[in-house]
């Protein structure tokens, strides 16, 4: 190990001098997503509309889906048929899923009309659509796991679509053991991973500016980087909070 690679106690390592894989990974991560971008305390003044709450609503719903899902999973698939508490937890699982999809669909439509893929944000768009698609599969396996009439009938109907494209032989909707693996491990992990990536990408690239925003806009003209505290920014903060 070279002498200059070992920082002296109390002195931060020089980030420009990283030469190990780990150091370079840290350097890249910190450059892409410094802490103040990951956990920001301000946002551009145009981020002031109800249109912006639906993404967070979807994340909040997903947390409730996971919490209620863990309770249901730990008690086994038959519990909610015979317990009033189980039935209520099952209802919260169902309705948090319904809300999750409502929030997600509204969020998706809004981001379409806002053309939110602009300026290098295309991967944010793609991960958003992917999280929607994977969530549909996750919800579908949940409906199949109900172990009641609905799951019986949905399995009977859905097998034809899956078999027609050669998937049903491996993804067998009538095999409850397989569905458990998909619904309580693989698909939640997939949804979680895609959603985390999506949120990190939003933080990396920031929120897309208005479609018709221009350099001549007052919000930009009166607030150049060199001016630390313009009257405009103070007014904007006051107006929001």
């Amino acid at each position: 190990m070279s002498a200059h690679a070992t920082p002296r106690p109390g002195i931060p390592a020089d980030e420009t001098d990283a030469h190990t894989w780990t150091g370079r990974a840290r350097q890249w991560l910190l450059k892409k997503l410094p802490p103040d971008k990951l956990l920001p305390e301000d946002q551009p003044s145009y981020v002031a509309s109800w249109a912006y709450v639906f993404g967070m609503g979807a994340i909040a719903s997903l947390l409730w889906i996971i919490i209620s899902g863990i309770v249901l999973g730990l008690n086994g698939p038959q519990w909610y048929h015979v317990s009033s508490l189980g039935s209520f937890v099952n209802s919260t699982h169902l309705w948090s899923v319904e809300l999750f999809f409502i929030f997600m669909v509204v969020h998706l439509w809004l981001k379409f009309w806002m053309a939110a893929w602009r300026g290098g944000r295309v991967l944010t768009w793609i991960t958003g659509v992917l999280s929607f698609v994977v969530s549909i599969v996750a919800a579908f396996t949940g409906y199949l796991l109900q172990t009641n009439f609905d799951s019986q009938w949905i399995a009977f109907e859905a097998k034809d679509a899956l078999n027609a494209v050669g998937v049903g032989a491996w993804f067998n909707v009538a095999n409850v053991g397989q569905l458990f693996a998909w619904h309580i491990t693989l698909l939640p992990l997939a949804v979680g991973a895609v959603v985390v990536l999506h949120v990190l990408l939003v933080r990396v690239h920031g929120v897309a500016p208005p479609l018709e925003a221009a350099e001549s806009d007052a919000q930009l003209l009166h607030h150049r980087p060199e001016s630390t505290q313009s009257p405009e920014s103070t007014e904007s903060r006051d107006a929001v909070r």
Partner: protein
Amino acid sequence: MTRKSSSISWRKTDDLASRPWTGSVREYDLIKELIIGVVVVGLLVLGVSAIFGSPDEPSVSLKAWATAAPADFVATATKELAGTSDSAGYGPPYNPTPDASQKIGPVDLQSLSGVRLPVDNGNDFVIAPLATLPSPPADLALWTAATDQQRSDWAAAYSIALAAAPDNDPAKVADGDYGPAPALTGALLDMARQGSLDGVLQNGGNFYNTDYTRSLLFLGDGSYFPGLAASQHLSGDQWGVMNETGDTPGQSWLWLFSLLYQVEPFKSAANADALVVVTMLVLTALLTFLPFIPGLRSLPRKIPLHRLVWKDYYRNR
């Protein structure tokens, strides 16, 4: 000063959308918004759950089927013996029935897997379960000793006779050469009514089982189970899988998938399932890669709904 409309492109260039925002900002608390979101959504979930609950219609057992619709049960068991039920002629992944798979042009995705979940309908649904009885019916030996042709002739003749009988009642079937088919299907009906067929068909003699493929295929070959689904607005022509029993919304996000089954050319196509799935895959790909598709990606500028979202910003420009 003239205002130049910003690009709709996904590319990172030197325009305003590509650079970090240097204009005015507002205070924002990410953690606070998350906590408020979780609390508000949590209250909403608890409230809606308390008011509407969730549907939990009990599953249908073979015992319930045999008890409620014995004629349908016997007719279905006979079709399984004759090899004329829906699932007996299904093709992959259950059996190798020729020309049964759904193709798109020359592409036969259904057959790619081969017979990976083999189901031998007559044997698996009728003969093997009867053989597990403490006293199997004597006619079982007659059936197993017969040739394939003889078996299908017996079962086919009995199937036709059942369809012609008043109320399809096995007790009112005209005399004919049905071999052991009536005795075997009658014994299976008794077995199902007593509740033992459910267990035998599901676990095949094992203690554990999580695979319901055979029970579900047998149930679906009859008309009792699909009839129950139709009475709950769950049939394919009633928007099928996106619905749920009762008045809860079900999988409403599958609306486009279900819609395709309701319209031509999908509706009457023999390969409707394959066509619908492939169409949905294409549409999903279009949505995923929409930022790269000229025309579609320009819609937000041509139909400027964004002005509603950013009306405060535009007003203060």
